[in-house]
């Protein structure tokens, strides 16, 4: 039985949503949700609110097919909540990127790191999340496709465009 449209391997692992799993999921994924939200809303406070919104929605779920699906769900929820916020009236002002990064960073960054974050933040939303998930979260194209509910082809396309935009040159052994 496939547990989702992307699962072809015929294996389902079920986990219930209880306090322990929520606690673990929060510890493991809160920063990820925050980064995804921050990427999109570019507002630290809003991103923090989105983290709470996403995990509050999580506790309403009965179960997930497995940990990977929980992560996929969190990513999708984070992106959707952030896009909803962007489409709603909650965010009206644009915060300069420098100011945003300064307030959102938990430690000092080098110039090259700052430059990269700045570039990523300027990417269109679609590319930004895909690039982040691939390069930072070590997710495969199939996992990204499932998380974002897009085709793998689209993932590849977005990565290509993202790399092109970022001018990142990756050696094969680095990937």
């Amino acid at each position, binding site marked *: 039985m496939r547990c989702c449209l992307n699962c072809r391997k015929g294996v*389902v692992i*079920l986990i219930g949503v209880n*306090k322990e799993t929520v606690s673990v999921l929060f510890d493991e994924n*809160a920063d990820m949700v925050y980064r995804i939200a921050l990427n999109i809303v570019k507002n630290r406070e809003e991103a923090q609110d989105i983290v709470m919104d996403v995990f*509050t929605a999580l506790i309403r779920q*009965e179960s997930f097919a497995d940990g990977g699906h929980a992560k996929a769900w969190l990513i999708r929820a984070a992106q959707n909540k952030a896009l909803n916020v962007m489409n709603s009236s909650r965010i009206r002002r644009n915060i300069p990127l420098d100011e945003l990064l300064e307030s959102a960073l938990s430690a000092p960054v080098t110039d090259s790191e700052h430059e990269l974050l700045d570039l990523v933040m300027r990417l269109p939303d679609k590319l930004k999340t895909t690039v982040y998930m691939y390069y930072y979260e070590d997710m495969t194209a199939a996992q990204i496709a499932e998380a974002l509910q897009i*085709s793998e*082809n689209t993932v590849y396309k977005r990565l290509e465009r993202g790399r092109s935009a970022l001018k990142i040159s*990756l050696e094969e052994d680095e990937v």
Partner: protein
Amino acid sequence: MNRDTFRSAYDKLALTDECKSEMKAKLLANMDQQRGGDFYDVGDCHRAREIKITRRKRGPLKTALFAGSAAAAAAGLAVGAGFWLNRNPAELQHNLTPPLEARTAETQTVEANAEKEYFTKRYASGTMTFQEFTVSTRAHSQPEEAVPKDEQADYISREILERYLLGMDEEFDKWINGLREDNEKAGCEAHDIEQVIAGRPLGDELWLSDVLCSGSGTAFTYLSKDGTKQVNISVSDDPDEFLPITLPDGGYLVPAGEYQSSFVVCDYTEHGYYQFVDPETFDLAAGSEEIGGDEYFAAVFAFDCADRGMKYYRLDGKNITREQFIGCVGKAAAVNLHDHYGYYSDDGMNKLPPEREQWNSDCPVIPEAAVEETMWGEIRVNVIANKYPWVNSSYHFNVEYTDSNIIPEEYRYSIKDITEYSGIDLEKALPEDFEKREVSYFARYDGMSFNNSEYGWGANKEMLPGDDREQFDISRDYIVNDYEALSGEEECSYYTTDKIEYFSGKTRTGALYSVECRSDGESGLIKVDVFDDWEMFSRETRALFGRLPAEKTVGFAGVEDKSLYVGGNVLNGNEYYIGGFSTGDGKYVVLQAENTGLDGFAEVLAKLFTNNFEAVPQ
């Protein structure tokens, strides 16, 4: 820059420990409030159990089922495996309405129907109306070769479990019991199990009892443990071959008149698209009658399963609930009866709880299509319930071109190519102030495949029969191979153009041209797709029509001889419209617009639809 640089930078975008602690405490407190404390906090409930349902090679029976004797069942019941169904309502009506003499051969009393109120309900993809059925004793054939039990369980669970398991069968029961035992050992509630078994209309009340097959059809029988409840499902190449539930005094139910239920061909789960321009529908007759204190149900319909030919379905039920029977019909017909992709109740009158919201419509209920006045004439706007990206629509093409491809100018695609392909001058149709334009092109070729998969996608690695070595070698330069750095499983490549000599002898089996344009500095977006293959069209985003089938707009912009279908809604605060029509030569044009206003959308649509750029508002 590399991945490490990326990681080191992003590591510093993090919540502070204090912030995380505070959030987590609030979250867990919320959980206690929402879930009543300890109910979910029962130890090892999260412990994973692996359920292995790997696909096996077909046994002799299954081979036979697929090869011939039960090809009808395989083709019909496994429509979800990716077969596209073509319906021909006129033909169905002709073939399936029982002859008059059959309807008059009544041998027992059916309750007087003169004042009977028949059930009728609007579903996501059509309307189910229970109609009058009468009793026939007309002779018919039926599948008679019993399929051994072990083969049944295997066949049902391996091949049709996911979508077509209607009740229980032995293997499914073993599986569920194993899961239950594990959960009990872990001290957990059974909510996981309920989720697994949800969606089967017969639940665990009725069990698969027998499977019979013949040279042309198959019949499945489900029975309750006490034998009082029963469902039979028959699928055959022959309209006169079926296994009905025989009535107490003999005979079986047949519809007394023309078929009164109608559904649109729409299988989101597998095909992932809905052909909203000239959508195909099929008719169905369903009903129930009380005879001798028992409630009998029956439904008949047929599909033209493309190259598999016409398949005739008959479902019979006894003493089950109406919703169970309708659920069985929905499963067998592979139509989306019950909900609007999880966002609305089955009749579209209630939006489901907010946690299911994703790219949601702002409508609390799904309204019917409404006529809107534009400067270019009236448009019947069907409601778009949702617009969402799709997962399962990949692997349908061999050539993928986008403007970001780095290839010589002569091998690139432009709006001129789309114009040539469609016969519609897109350059003139698109608004001048939408300056940011991006062209993409996708094509599918006969016999071409990256890994010889059934989908036939990607760029072939080896020469194909008849290939010229030199041309093949040159073609390697026009493959997107950025992805070879990915792991082996994910390796993936496509041709970036088919304007090279290598493709001159190849047969293109599908094409999709797109141009997406944006208004500078505004949120306006216009996208035009021209294609001949709906599967390819829906590769990224789609609109989910709330009421199906979509209703046609007639006479827009003075055009009387072409069908036009329009949808629209406000989705997450953005105004969204979609309109599509056939060019009449096997191609379709679909216009999507965001935040252009209805008149802005209508103006572009009018130009595309009329192919007349001097046209003035009506």
